[in-house]
């Protein structure tokens, strides 16, 4: 293990009303990958922002390469060799790859930007990292994975000594993650220190050397990855054991009626000839790797994106769904993976979001029946145990898990019988995850049917009654929960790639 390159000690930071960082310590060594873990809101990102000068710390010291430092902005941190690879891709879609790599530090010839040299340098950089990307390509034409590679390449190009990865794998496919890990291992050999922030436990085990855990803005402890188990880490993160046992067999009777049947659905490259059935009271898991076409299937089914062909039967009757409006009328509800963009109207209240899909039911003549609206919203707040001071609270002020519950309430208020949960627990912390799971189980017990799209194997195995596996836009298999294992799901999910 290398020598210590960066030490953060006693870092304290408060925002109005929030004590975001409470005397946190962190130590990073040369040539190691340090995992930084914690629930959402534990203060990981804030800590990194303090480090790179985006936030100013209230107290504490940062020692870097033996000297005490305080960066005023990301530029200074970069110059010193500390670089962040961001969670959201910071790409300038309209510029080329090379222009992106060198933004803010272009090579110049007089006053002119030397694009030729930038392209050459970018080429060299990519060669070194063993990735094939054309530096002259416009950024927005690359896949998300390639864009992520560019981000990493950019970080490397700073001659970085410390690289911080903020949930880098969130948008990557399995093979792309593999490719990224190769680069990370490479960098390790070059004695570069890395901080790796991720929610994915399996990745942590594979790539990191030590794990530092934070909780509620405080430092909990640091473990050596090889010497600890997942449960150890999770216990440190939440202070309690949380996972229920996985389902072993389907709770749905064999003769349960089919509520939704999809036949030969086609929509672009990502949805090719997909057929499946959903039974009443069932949770149908959709598994697959990123980019397998699961979300696209759901969106096409829901009428959010245009489809080319395919038949949809609801309760045995053939229906036409061209717009979300049609879908909602037939009792479908879609809970998007990206709640803030597709699920809720954050600047409106809990009550207003709850009734949004079914205003018809909350009208008194031409006016909105505000009393009924409030009452119904309250009912769902209680039923779903949504934590909100009142139904008049703006949704923007709720946590991720509670926002998810508001979206659920919206569809329940609409009397939707078929709910599509797209990554229902993404970005939700471990404690709240469990509540969402309970809620889903409760819903199916009440006779609703659920399609659950998830990239987390454990989630799929624990929740689903049956599992549909997709790969590159095609359905590659269907498994009953009794016969499903991580291995055979993975096998189906990667069949065509391998």
């Amino acid at each position, binding site marked *: 293990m290398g020598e210590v390159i960066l030490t953060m000690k006693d870092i304290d930071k408060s925002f109005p009303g929030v004590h975001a960082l409470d005397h946190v310590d962190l130590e990073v060594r040369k040539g190691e990958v340090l995992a930084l873990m914690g629930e959402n809101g534990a203060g990981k990102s804030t800590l990194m922002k303090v480090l790179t000068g985006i936030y100013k710390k209230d107290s504490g010291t940062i020692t870097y390469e033996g000297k005490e430092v305080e960066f005023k902005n*990301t530029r200074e941190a970069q110059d010193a060799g500390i670089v962040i690879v961001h969670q959201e891709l*910071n790409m*300038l879609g309209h510029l080329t790859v090379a222009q992106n790599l060198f933004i*803010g530090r272009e090579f110049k010839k007089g006053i*002119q930007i030397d694009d030729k040299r930038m392209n050459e340098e970018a080429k060299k950089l990519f060669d070194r990292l063993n990735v094939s990307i054309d530096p002259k390509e416009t950024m927005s034409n690359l896949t998300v994975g390639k864009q992520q590679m560019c981000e990493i390449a950019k970080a490397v190009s700073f001659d970085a000594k410390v690289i911080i990865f903020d949930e880098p794998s969130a948008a990557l496919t399995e093979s792309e993650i593999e490719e990224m890990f190769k680069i990370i291992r490479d960098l390790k050999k070059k004695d570069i220190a890395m901080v790796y922030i991720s929610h994915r436990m399996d990745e942590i085990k594979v790539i990191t050397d030590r794990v530092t855990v934070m909780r509620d803005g405080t430092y909990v402890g640091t473990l050596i990855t090889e010497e600890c188990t997942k449960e150890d880490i999770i216990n440190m993160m939440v202070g309690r054991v949380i996972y229920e046992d996985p389902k072993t067999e389907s709770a749905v009777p064999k003769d349960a009626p089919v509520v939704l049947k999809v036949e030969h659905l086609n929509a672009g490259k990502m949805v090719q000839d997909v057929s499946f059935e959903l039974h009443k009271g069932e949770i149908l898991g959709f598994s697959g790797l990123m980019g397998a076409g699961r979300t696209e299937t759901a969106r096409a089914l829901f009428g959010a994106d245009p489809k080319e062909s395919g038949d949809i039967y609801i309760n045995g009757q053939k229906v036409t769904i061209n717009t979300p409006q049609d879908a909602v009328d037939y009792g479908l509800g879609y809970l998007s993976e990206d709640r803030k963009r597709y699920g809720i109207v954050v600047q409106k209240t809990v009550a207003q979001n709850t009734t949004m899909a079914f205003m018809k039911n909350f009208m008194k003549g031409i006016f909105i029946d505000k009393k009924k609206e409030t009452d119904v919203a309250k009912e769902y707040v209680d039923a779903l145990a949504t934590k909100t001071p009142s139904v008049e609270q703006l949704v923007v002020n709720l946590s991720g898990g509670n926002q998810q519950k508001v979206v659920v309430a919206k569809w329940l208020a609409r009397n939707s019988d078929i709910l599509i949960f797209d990554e229902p627990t993404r970005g939700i912390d471990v404690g709240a995850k469990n509540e969402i799971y309970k809620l889903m189980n409760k819903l199916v017990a009440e006779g609703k049917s659920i399609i659950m799209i998830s990239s987390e194997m454990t989630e799929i195995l624990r929740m689903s009654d049956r599992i549909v596996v997709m790969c590159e836009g095609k359905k590659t298999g269907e498994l009953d929960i009794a016969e499903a294992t991580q291995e055979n799901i993975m096998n189906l999910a990667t069949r065509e790639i391998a």
Partner: protein
Amino acid sequence: MVKKRAFGKLKGREVMVLGIIVAMVILFSFLSPTFRTYPTLVSVLDNSYYITLMALGVTFPLITGGVDLSIGTGLVSYALIGGYLIIHMDMPVGVGILACIGMGLLIGVFNGVLVAVMDLPPFLATLCTCMITRGLGPALCGGFGVSWPSALSESGTFRKIFKFTTAGGTVVPIGIIFIVILVLIMSYVLNHTRVGRYTIAIGSNKEATRLAGVNVKFYHMLAYIISGLFAGLAGVAYAATYATIYPGAGAGFELDAIGGAIVGGVSASGGVGSIVGAFLGVIVICLMKVGLPFIGLQANWQQIFTGIVLIAAVLVDVVKKKK
């Protein structure tokens, strides 16, 4: 070298707009014999100078995803102030020209501060400056129109920057040479310097640009300063082309410039656009302004056509994207 870069690689949109220009010229010439005369060509150019200058400048805020609505009333205001200094304060013409450009810069800085530093929505901020500049010129100059010295008078030489009359009486629109040079310079600035690169970057993703360590506030502000500067230059061009500057005029000029830029493929949502395209777009607008009366349509039809062309230009993009 520079020329090759700017014109050697015309993009699809620019070729299309160029095609439209050629088609319009052919159509107008076919329909109106008086249109195909040399003086008409000169007058199309004459009409285009100040709009082109505005468009060159406003392209920058447009590419950052903003807009500058203050350029139209601004240019009249600046020209008024410049003219006031020359006529009523007996200053040399040079001072008037500098004052005109200087005022443009000043308002540009003001807009820049409002948008980049104070973070106001560009649309609203420049709407306010539009009102302010509308009042500013007349308020400072007592509300009366002024005439800059005419081409014939001794101090009227500045008008010859844009139009030179030979001994034989032929009018040479040398203004177009300056305009083309400016187009090339600004095209170079947009494509090959940091200013341009960061302008596009801000329009593409402001936050990412900031995180890349670029002084976003400065470059964002610079876009508005460039716009202001060119509004000042447009003020000079306007004063040089037309006899008298009337206060209260100018509202709506900015729409010709912005409309031209948009027809030329500058995106109203930022990140995309070229100077050459904006220039060609302005020529389309000016051709309509000058050409439609020539083919016997009453002047008002021109406004209807401008509206239709504008929508058509954007619909082309929309439909393309849908495909």
